[in-house]
């Protein structure tokens, strides 16, 4: 008998693992019995014991998000057994690189426009003086460069702008 005490049905994990679903089952809040596929896929990719350990190491208020992200990653890996989530990350990295290039070109164009609109005399007088627009641009770029730095730090597994799945086994510096 694998019925939970009190008559309620076991969670999806205990159903799949064919065991008694305890009151304090760590999976029960996140893998309800009405969605067995969710746990099946997580179990297939990560293994029930690994998932259990990962959830147990987290404070209770973070376990829901952790379970959801594990389901997302497991789904991605089942859809794409080679790249999993990394495929999406590579695609997004390329988008970021393209947008940064377009932004750089647009900002260069602004500078050209500004220079064309200034008279030579006004240009000489203006050297070293920031106007409000420049200040806003610089402020944003400073913030933006900090954000970029944050992304690059997080993405330190690969060099920014490159496909993370290229050059296998050359990421030694990360693991040394």
């Amino acid at each position, binding site marked *: 008998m694998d019925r939970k005490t009190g008559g309620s049905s076991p969670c999806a994990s205990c159903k799949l693992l064919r065991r008694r679903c305890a009151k304090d089952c760590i999976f029960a809040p996140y893998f309800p019995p009405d969605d067995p596929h969710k746990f099946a896929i997580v179990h297939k990719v*990560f*293994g029930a014991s690994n998932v259990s350990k990962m959830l147990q190491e987290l404070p209770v208020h*973070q376990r829901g998000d*952790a379970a959801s*992200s594990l389901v997302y990653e497991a789904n991605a890996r089942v859809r794409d057994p080679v790249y999993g989530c990394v495929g999406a990350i590579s695609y997004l990295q390329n*988008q970021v690189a393209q947008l940064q290039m377009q932004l750089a070109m647009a900002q260069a164009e602004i500078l050209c426009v500004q220079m064309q609109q200034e008279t030579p005399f006004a240009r000489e007088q203006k050297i070293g003086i920031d106007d409000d627009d420049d200040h806003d641009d610089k402020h944003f770029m400073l913030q933006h460069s900090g954000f970029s730095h944050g992304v690059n730090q997080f993405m330190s597994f690969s060099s920014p702008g490159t496909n993370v799945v290229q050059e296998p086994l050359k990421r030694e510096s990360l693991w040394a």
Partner: protein
Amino acid sequence: MSTSSHNSNNTSPSPIINESNQRRCAACKYLRKRCSRDCVLSPYFPASLPHRFACVHKIFGASNVARTLQQLPVHQRAQAAEAMSAEAYWRVQDPVYGSVGVINLLQQHIYMNQRELARTRAHIAIHSPTRGPCSPWAGLWTSPI
């Protein structure tokens, strides 16, 4: 009774094991087992990168990784191992969101870049009446593929 432990006539029980110890991949070293010649993990988890396998084992489990690689054609296994290592690394760094956190971060970055690009192009359109009308949204949604 010979008391020498280094008698050359004594065949140490370990030369075969010692030799295979030296050739063991990171996975077999971690799991403390003999690394066979056809070990599916050894090409992708060399002994020089022990932390890489430790990460992957912690998140996916050695048997899941081995099974995943075995089910793939040989020419795709290196990239699969690399991708799994990356995902495991991100999950160890961020136990709540893992690689989903990286995706969120990149999406935020894209959103900010798109907003700034639209703002910049609007600025160009306003201050450059001689250039033809140019939608600030042009090119924003171009697929990189």
